[in-house]
């Protein structure tokens, strides 16, 4: 590590009318280090990166790159000084090749302005071999796995001469194997003298990869630590401001009668192909069945069929001994099936409704919230006040617009609603996605408490740790099928990861990664 700083941000303050997103934030990133920024949602880590990249101007404070104060606050100014951002959501054109995507927007010209494809391909090949990216410039994006797409994004910023790479939650979409490969690449970049800023909420990754860590809380810097000299527990405490239970303790399950039985379940997607094929599952009361899998392998569709949102083409769903295949969502709810949907804004909430109105969604037609077709505003309000209190929803305003809650509080709202009323079966899809560490702890303990009270829980999650911590048994989905089933505790992350990518040969590493953690995307993308 050299003495020079790649990035020095001093006293950055960014105000929004309802929040102070950054409050006199200082950030020092040394040349050639991997610097992690961790913090809960709303802690201001995205804001500080947006300020650095020029997407939003700060109200106060200064930014120096390479010891020189940055004059403008536009992305172009940052890019000129060698800052590059790898976004969480990839921005690639599916029908173009790797090389074409890389040069898009900065096309090399020759002979007037003919696109110099050869030069682009050569440059991509060169960058790819330099950092071990295993990219073929002539591959079409639509044939690449998520991990490879991310590498294309990395090459894009390298191609534009980035010396400081900002990666925003880069591991969220990757399988464990892909994460490991990404880390190899990032280390290679560091060896080559590039500086890396890494935003994440996964503490293991931070400790594994980062040199130094800036922890943010409530818009301020809660501390800067060296990765070698800290622990997960300490980081969590700095992030949340109190001691956090990182791994809930789980008592032995005492399963009872089968609550959910799924037999030979199939469903057909928009293009006529099977999105689910012959699924067999059983969840007993007092038990959590975890479904692991890379996103887009039929988990969404499975949840939709079970909750009545999608029709099954074959097979059966049985809840509490009653055949419920292809019942309506309302019938399923009235049978005691609760559902935490994977996409809270698209499915789980009506943004524009108040918190109180959202807290009755799905039960709004039943007593005490409605009787004889009229809403009972008093009962709705009491209900809202009780759940807000019990689940510590903030702000504590039943009449506030749910759209103005933070992501974590929106998720808490849904969890509060779906847990309430003692469901027989809870289908929890990505219940902690985008949720703070403190709230994750809450959701996890709540799930276990519900289990111990006798609910059957079907847990779908892309977070392997979540699946492994909570599940009494684990099923792995790939390509619309269940490809493996394990007893909880009897399986390692490694083994699960292999099953998630379709079984043997998937993790041969390097160039073989194309064995694709992903089914044909157009079939699955019914979201």
């Amino acid at each position, binding site marked *: 590590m050299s003495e020079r700083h790649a990035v020095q941000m001093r006293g950055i303050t960014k105000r929004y*009318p309802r929040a102070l997103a950054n409050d006199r934030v200082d950030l020092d990133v040394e040349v050639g280090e991997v610097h992690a920024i961790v913090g809960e949602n709303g802690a201001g880590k995205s804001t500080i990166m947006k300020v650095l990249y020029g997407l*939003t101007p700060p109200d106060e404070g200064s930014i120096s790159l390479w010891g020189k104060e940055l004059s403008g606050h536009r992305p172009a100014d940052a890019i000129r000084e060698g800052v590059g951002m790898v976004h969480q959501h990839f921005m690639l*054109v599916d029908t173009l090749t790797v090389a074409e995507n890389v040069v898009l927007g900065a096309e090399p010209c020759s002979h007037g302005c003919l696109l110099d494809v050869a030069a682009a391909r050569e440059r991509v090949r060169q960058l790819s071999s330099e950092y071990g990216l295993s990219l073929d410039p002539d591959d079409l994006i639509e044939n690449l796995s998520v991990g490879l797409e991310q590498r294309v994004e990395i090459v894009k910023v390298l191609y534009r001469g980035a010396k400081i790479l900002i990666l925003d939650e880069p591991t969220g979409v990757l399988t464990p194997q892909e994460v490991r490969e990404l880390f190899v690449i990032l280390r290679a970049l560091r060896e080559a003298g590039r500086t890396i800023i890494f935003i994440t909420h996964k503490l293991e990754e931070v400790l594994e990869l980062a040199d130094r860590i800036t922890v943010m809380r409530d818009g301020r810097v809660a501390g800067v630590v060296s990765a070698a000299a800290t622990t997960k527990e300490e980081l969590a405490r700095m992030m949340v401001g109190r001691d956090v239970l990182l791994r809930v303790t789980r008592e032995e399950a005492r399963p009872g009668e089968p609550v959910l039985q799924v037999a030979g379940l199939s469903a057909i997607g928009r293009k006529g192909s099977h999105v689910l094929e012959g699924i067999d599952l059983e969840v007993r009361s007092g038990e959590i069945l975890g479904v692991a899998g890379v996103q887009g392998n039929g988990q969404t569709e499975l949840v939709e069929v079970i909750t009545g949102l999608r029709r099954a083409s074959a097979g059966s769903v049985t809840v509490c001994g009653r055949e419920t295949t292809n019942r309506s*969502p*309302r019938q399923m709810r009235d049978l005691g099936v609760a559902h935490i949907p994977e996409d809270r804004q698209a499915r789980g909430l*009506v*943004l*524009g409704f108040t918190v109180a109105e959202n807290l009755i969604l799905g039960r*709004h037609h039943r007593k005490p919230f409605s009787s004889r077709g009229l*809403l009972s505003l008093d009962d709705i309000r009491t209900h809202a006040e009780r759940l807000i209190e019990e689940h510590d929803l903030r702000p504590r305003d039943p009449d506030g617009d749910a759209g103005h809650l933070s992501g974590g509080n929106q998720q808490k709202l849904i969890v509060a609603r779906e847990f309430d009323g003692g469901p027989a079966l809870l289908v929890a899809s990505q219940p902690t996605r985008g949720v703070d560490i403190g709230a994750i702890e809450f959701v996890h303990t709540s799930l276990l408490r519900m289990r111990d009270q006798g609910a059957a829980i079907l847990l779908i999650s892309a977070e392997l740790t979540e699946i492994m911590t909570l599940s009494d048994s684990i099923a792995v989905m790939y390509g619309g099928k269940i490809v493996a089933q394990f007893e909880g505790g009897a399986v390692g992350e490694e083994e699960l990861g292999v099953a998630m990518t379709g079984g043997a040969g998937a993790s041969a590493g390097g160039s073989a990664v194309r064995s694709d953690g992903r089914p044909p995307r157009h079939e699955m993308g019914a979201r």
Partner: protein
Amino acid sequence: MSRFARLSQLLSPLVAVAASFLVGGLVVVAIGENPFHIYAILFRGAFGSVDAIGLVLFNAVPLIFTGLAVAFAFRAGLFNIGGEGQLYIGAFVCTLAGLAFGGLPALVLIPLLILASAAGGALWAAVPGFLKARFGVHEVINTIMMNFIAVGLTSYFVINMLREPGQMTPQTSEIAFAGHLPRLADSLSLIGIPLPQANPLNFSLVLALGAVLLAWYILYRTTLGYEIRAVGMNAKAAEYAGINVRRTLVMAMVLSGAFAGLVATNEIMGFRHRFLDNFSSGLGFMGIAVALLGKNTPLGVLLAALLFAVLNTGALEIDIFTDVPRELILVLQAVTIILVVVGNEVFARRVAAREGRAAGVPLPVTEASGETK
């Protein structure tokens, strides 16, 4: 909603109205007249006498109904352009019932005709509602088509089969007297308001005010209203919540059409007492503008309908007493609507800029390279 958002929500229509008067004034200057003079005449025409105010209210009544119709459907995410057709069918059914059940006493016939008006409009709106719910066909196209059918059909029946005997005018005979809604002049004189006997203002005004309340009540106090709003704001979440989205869409259209059909209480039961071919001349379409200006809230619709009625009523005066064409009022109304729509966008963006990001909504990526995936 923050105070800023709420304030701009309230202010933007007012600013738009003020700005449109400014633009209208410039037009008046451009044709060589004095805008202050013209506006003075306009407001005298609308507020200069009890008679004038009565006329304003009378003109506001059908706009309240059609405005409510548009606003109500909009709450379910539907754009009901078919108010015109729905009010024709409502008026037609009302007239038929008024002709057929002449023997009934007023106490029975009046409620019956009110129901007939609403039912006619509801029926006509149910068709595009059903087509939307069942086949996903866009309601805008079908409500427009239903307008043509309604105007054409009623015209055919009135001219060829129901024309008043011995008349050239394409109109039906008068409905039974028991089905007439009384004018308000007599009742108002009891409390000392000297509304002339000839003023057409009638009890339909009371019904219109009731409809405003009813629309509000349905939307915010009933389970159905909750479901309608849920479907309108997020149909996928509504489906997830077990709401029958298709049924809710049809119900919203039916109620919307019923509001439009109630125009007949003013035009037929309260005023003409008969169906005249082509009587509406765009009341249904004006409803769209009224709902837009009223931000699709029942109270907003009431206020916007009053404003439009003021302009329409005052326009007559301008026509009579000045060289300025009354079409100026059309310009004014159109400019108001454009400014409201533009104002909505501008305010929405400013509100989003001020709070959306703070509330954790991700910024749209504004990178130099504009690829998307």
